[in-house]
């Protein structure tokens, strides 16, 4: 188990360096000059342009810029926003809880609905349940996120008036930020109705962000279960006279979860991309919306640092998935 852990940690370092090179290089390939953008409509004189270039370090060779960048990161400095003049890390940390809360809720929905749906589809293979679950999953998977989000807003917010259109909580409520998670903070505040308001704001974005992972998890669970249900050890479990609930829910599902957990880990990365769209649609003040805004403003340090931080989050999540994988699958743990 220790070797397995060290190995997993060891892989993280080159991955992180690789991601930093990609984000550093990619942002410089994009068209658009940040200095001109900073100057705005008034324009900038050639002297001032050169001055700014030197100040921001854009005149030096790329390798030097990269090395400085990496060195700073190792010291916890992810740069400073060209627009707000705030450290990138501070800006990220201020917005990350919102994204984390949204992603956790979305993934929670995807897992608690997706896995049972996949199990039912597999056990009742070929039935009307199977067909309707799989058709729904395919529709969910194929639906563009922005379109799906808009449809839900039109139905639930505009026509039915059940949920708010944007934000994390109604402006009526104000309380200090403790954890950064609106659900928890609203409960801690003790303000009446605050928690309900936070939930009603969270529900639509969570559904929108969770739809694709939900569909993928349901399909993966179904195919993994179908394979496992035909295994010899499932027959052994039945030969013991166990209840079908125990056979399916314990003996089969435990084995089927191994590939499903892998898919869940991969979906976290997909979800980070989805968060950009979802947060924009619902004006959710999270990392995704922040990234998109920074791209439009050509705020190099923010895009670069933000991408790297998001990549780091995805890597950490996948590390956790790998550890969970070892926990579920004894062959990996002791292999």
């Amino acid at each position, binding site marked *: 188990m220790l070797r397995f852990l060290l190995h997993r940690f060891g892989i993280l370092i080159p991955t992180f360096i690789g991601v930093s090179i990609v984000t550093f290089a990619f942002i410089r390939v994009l068209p658009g000059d940040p200095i001109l953008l900073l100057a705005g409509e008034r324009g900038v004189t050639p002297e001032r342009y050169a001055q700014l270039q030197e100040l921001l370090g854009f005149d030096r060779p790329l390798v030097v810029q990269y090395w400085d960048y990496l060195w700073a990161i190792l010291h916890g400095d992810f740069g400073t926003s060209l627009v707000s003049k705030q450290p990138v890390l501070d800006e990220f940390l201020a917005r990350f809880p919102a994204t984390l809360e949204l992603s956790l809720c979305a993934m929670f929905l995807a897992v608690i609905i997706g896995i049972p749906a996949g199990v039912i589809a597999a056990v009742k293979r070929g039935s009307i349940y199977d067909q309707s679950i799989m058709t729904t999953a395919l529709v969910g998977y194929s639906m563009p996120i922005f379109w799906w989000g808009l449809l839900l807003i039109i139905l639930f917010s505009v026509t039915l008036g059940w949920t708010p259109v944007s934000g994390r909580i109604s402006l009526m409520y104000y309380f200090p930020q403790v954890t950064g998670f609106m659900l928890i903070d609203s409960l801690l505040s003790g303000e009446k109705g605050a928690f309900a308001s936070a939930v009603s704001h969270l529900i639509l974005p969570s559904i929108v962000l969770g739809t694709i992972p939900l569909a993928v998890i349901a399909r993966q669970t179904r195919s993994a279960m179908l394979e496992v249900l035909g*295994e*010899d*050890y499932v*027959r*052994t479990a039945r030969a013991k*006279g166990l*209840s079908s609930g125990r056979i399916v829910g314990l003996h089969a599902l435990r084995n089927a979860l191994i590939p499903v957990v892998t898919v869940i880990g991969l979906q976290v990365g997909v979800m980070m991309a989805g968060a950009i769209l979802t947060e924009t649609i619902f004006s959710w003040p999270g990392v995704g919306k922040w990234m998109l805004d920074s791209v439009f403003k050509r705020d190099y340090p923010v895009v670069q640092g933000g991408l790297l931080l998001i990549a780091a989050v995805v890597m950490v999540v996948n590390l956790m998935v790998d550890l969970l994988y070892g926990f579920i699958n*004894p*062959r990996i743990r*002791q292999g």
Partner: protein
Amino acid sequence: MPLLDIRDLSVTFATSTGAFKAVDGVDISVDAGEVLSIVGESGSGKSVAMLAVMGLLPPTATVTAAHMEFDGVDLKTASKRRRREIIGRDISMIFQEPMSSLNPCFTVGFQIGEALKTHLGLGRSERKKRAIELLSLVGIPEPEKRLSAFPHQLSGGMSQRVMIAMAISCRPKLLIADEPTTALDVTIQAQILDLLVDLQKETEMGLVLITHDMGVVAETAQRVVVQYAGKQVERQDVTGLFDAPHHPYTAALLDALPDRATGDRLPAIPGVVPGQGDRPTGCLFNPRCAFADERCRTVEPPRQPPELGEALCHYPLHTGEAAA
């Protein structure tokens, strides 16, 4: 009254190319403490018949029987719940592939303890005690340590011992062993067979041994059923069968035993067991039978009397040496 009494058992599978009768009109009876062997090539329906008794066939299979009784319980009319109470406690089964028959995600101790908890309602410490007892009974060294082992840490022989420990955990009245040694090394095969026979003698449970190995039959069984293409072609006690096989198929199987072979080459039975699409008319064995004539190819053979091994044949062999 026999412990297990089955008459006219048939199993039909619904396949994409039509219905396929894998087991056709089979009678099986096993007395308490008796060892019955079912012999036949792959595809003869011997496993399917016993899986039908266990209720382990997939939903595509249709099981019909004139009579199906175990220990006074009518399995045909028993509820699913009632059958589950019997399966794993009073009848248990071990399989051909021990390595894949154990769940890779759970420890040996957990998997042995499951039946004890489900059927006997034993608590945690009692389960552990009984599991250790069972593991030492099936000859696993250091049973306490093995409880926390996962299946991938066990060899094939060890896995089969664990399967046997699981199967006998609730002291069953009948154990069905479906080719329990086929997937194992030759040296381990003998050990596992000895273990099964010893356990059978000690616990006086009935044992149904499904095999295609006539050598195994000779060493273990009291009575033998020879099955071919879903039908029972001969039923005899073991000495009678080896001394005077009445069905040409049984005789051919015995001739293929290395101990009995006389020439330079081992005699083999030409051809394979007919499948779904190539069933011959008349006797199912006629295309491979050395004695077949026109009657065998057109008329279904009759069941001969018990003194001729109840052979399903027009021209049974060794009629002069009929068992008394």
